[in-house]
């Protein structure tokens, strides 16, 4: 119970760590993300298993494997078909070829860690497993267009001796699945994934106690039943309405089973359901459920239970009680990746804004090239300012500046939109107010640096009282400038200016 809770959270964290950790993506062997994924998956549950005891460990491993395999397969299937995400993850690569390797890897790892798991005896009388096996065999018969060998391997194994138990268990689900199987196109890899996971699960759950099998049963049922329709959704790449319809069902199930629910079965099913759907086109709800608000569990439970029996024909349900960030299809929904996705979207949004600002960047795509353009443009603008100021400096002595005349002219050119985009708080705030403060300090502040600063750059009247509030900073500057100019180029200043100039100005020009 508590162990389950703990482990569920740990499992979800592992999930997050796994799928969000870029190192996994980089350390893929044979360019196969699934291998590394699976090896990580298998190895990590083992640690937990040893910690929490064999039986628990088995269940934990089972759940983990099922969920992860299923989710991997789902993601692998879903994303190529309906990849609406902007940023594809390595896990989106089609897993068809890899699943056989995956299977081997799993077997290898499991055998290596087989010490923790008492027996790999032939398939036990686990009713849940039997049902799964039967379901799988139905799928296998129903026209797998497989090129891989897995189904062939599995089917005979599963068929042996387990079909008899199928009828005893929850036949409605069993009957429910074949029709779905008939209708949908089975993708080989997903089948393999499910079958592989179930096979492993079966091996592990054999030795579990009846109690465990019981909730394993419900867990597996719910997970399977959820996975299959969900997987089918993924396969067909159904339009959003259908997918949402199905989605709502699993979501409902997820809702019904918050992480901290007392009901062990529901917890397990929730975890497996969550995992199975984690790569489905689902919302952040799973992420929320993982972190679970206990308060929401009560609300949710009632809804979920009602939905459980009806899986096939669901009316689309709006998600409730959760803060939603809609995840795109085939994308992870754990906290890290979600935060990353939000961040990425923010950045891309801002890049778009910048793209509009920089002239002639409409065809540019990609962050790097765009950044290049932006940098070039900012540099060119800065150079233009310098050039124009130089020009003004040359022209200046000869001109009379008629401020009003200039302002009356359309000096602003064609930048209409600019006017409203920037801050327009009080422009020249009561200059008297800060000015009064300044006038006391300015005569002291401006003269001294001028006299002392032979080696320094141009001496703007700097106020040493750095404690000025920021809001007044700009006003001070204006006042400084005005005061600087107003004070006139008295003898002191001019002399100091001349002194300053040689050191400062010779290197100005490019």
């Amino acid at each position, binding site marked *: 119970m508590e162990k389950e809770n703990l482990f569920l959270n740990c499992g979800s964290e592992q999930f997050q760590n796994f799928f969000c950790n870029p190192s996994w993506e980089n350390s893929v062997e044979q360019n196969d993300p699934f291998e590394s994924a699976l090896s990580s998956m298998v190895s990590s549950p083992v640690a937990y298993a040893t910690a929490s005891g064999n039986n628990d460990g088995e269940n934990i491993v089972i759940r983990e494997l099922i969920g992860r395999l299923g989710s991997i397969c789902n993601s692998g299937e879903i994303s190529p078909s309906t990849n609406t995400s902007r940023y594809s993850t390595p896990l989106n690569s089609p897993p068809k070829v890899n699943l056989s390797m995956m299977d081997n890897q799993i077997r290898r790892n499991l055998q290596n860690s087989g010490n923790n798991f008492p027996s790999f005896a032939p398939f036990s009388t686990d009713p849940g497993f039997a049902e799964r096996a039967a379901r799988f065999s139905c799928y296998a018969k129903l026209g797998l267009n497989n090129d891989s060998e897995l189904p062939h391997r599995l089917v005979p194994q599963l068929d042996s001796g387990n079909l008899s138990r199928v009828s005893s268990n929850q036949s409605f689900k069993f009957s429910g699945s074949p029709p779905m199987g008939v209708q949908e196109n089975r993708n080989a890899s997903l089948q393999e994934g499910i079958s592989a996971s179930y096979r492993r699960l079966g091996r592990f759950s054999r030795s579990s106690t009846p109690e465990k099998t019981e909730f394993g049963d419900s867990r597996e049922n719910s997970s399977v039943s959820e996975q299959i329709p969900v997987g089918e959704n993924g396969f067909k790449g159904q339009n959003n309405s259908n997918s949402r319809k199905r989605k709502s069902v699993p979501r409902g199930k997820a809702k019904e089973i918050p992480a901290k629910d007392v009901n062990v079965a529901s917890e397990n099913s929730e975890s497996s359901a969550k995992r199975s759907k984690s790569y489905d086109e689902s919302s952040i709800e799973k992420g929320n459920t993982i972190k679970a608000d206990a308060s929401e569990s009560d609300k949710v439970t009632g809804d979920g239970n009602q939905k459980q029996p009806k899986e096939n024909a669901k009316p689309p349900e709006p998600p409730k009680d959760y803060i939603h960030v809609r995840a795109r299809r085939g994308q992870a929904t754990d906290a890290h990746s979600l935060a990353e996705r939000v961040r990425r979207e923010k950045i891309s949004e801002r890049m778009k804004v910048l793209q509009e600002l920089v002239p002639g960047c409409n065809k540019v795509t990609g962050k790097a090239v765009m950044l290049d353009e932006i940098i070039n443009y900012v540099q060119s*603008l800065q150079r233009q300012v310098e050039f124009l100021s130089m020009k003004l400096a040359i022209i200046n002595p000869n001109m009379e500046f008629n401020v009003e005349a200039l302002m009356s002219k359309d000096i602003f050119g064609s930048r209409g939109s600019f006017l409203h985009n920037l801050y327009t708080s009080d422009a020249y705030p009561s200059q008297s107010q800060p000015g009064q403060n300044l006038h006391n300090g300015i005569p002291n502040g401006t003269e001294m640096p001028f006299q002392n600063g032979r080696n320094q750059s141009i001496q703007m009247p*700097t106020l040493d009282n750095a404690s000025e509030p920021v809001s007044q900073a700009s006003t001070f500057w204006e006042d400084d400038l005005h005061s600087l100019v107003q004070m006139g180029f008295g003898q002191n200043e001019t002399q100091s200016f001349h002194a300053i100039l040689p050191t400062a100005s010779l290197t100005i020009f490019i």
Partner: protein
Amino acid sequence: MNTHNQLPSSHSSVESRFASGFLKALKKMNKNRPSSPSIRDTYRRYNFIRVSAYGLMASAVRPGRAWSHATLWKIRNRTFHRALMKRSRTHSLTRRVARGNPRNELGCEQVNDLRKLVPGGEEMKFCRLLNETAHYMKCLQAQVQIMRNIVDHYST
């Protein structure tokens, strides 16, 4: 920060603030200065104008953007000129290499360059840097436009 307080005066936009301030500064600079064609004076005026351009623009952007604060801070601390000099020297260094730069994957190189370009961009997160860059770009565009108009007005 985004409150648009419309003043009764006509100077209610950043551009107008900048333009008027700039013109006033120019006017006053000329008023008291004997027009000597010496290079020194020209240089001096150039510096003054440049610094005042940036400073006025920064101050015209009222409740501070980060870059405006940084610019004003630099001016206050008398490092503005040094920064400008450094920039003119390093323009060639930051010139963009060919687009096919293999390091462009994350764009860290460009991001660093961008940080150097935008005042105050050294210690910002990337997201905020983009914001500041956009704002800074807008202000620079306005500044260039105004100055060009002034120059054109007086060169004709």
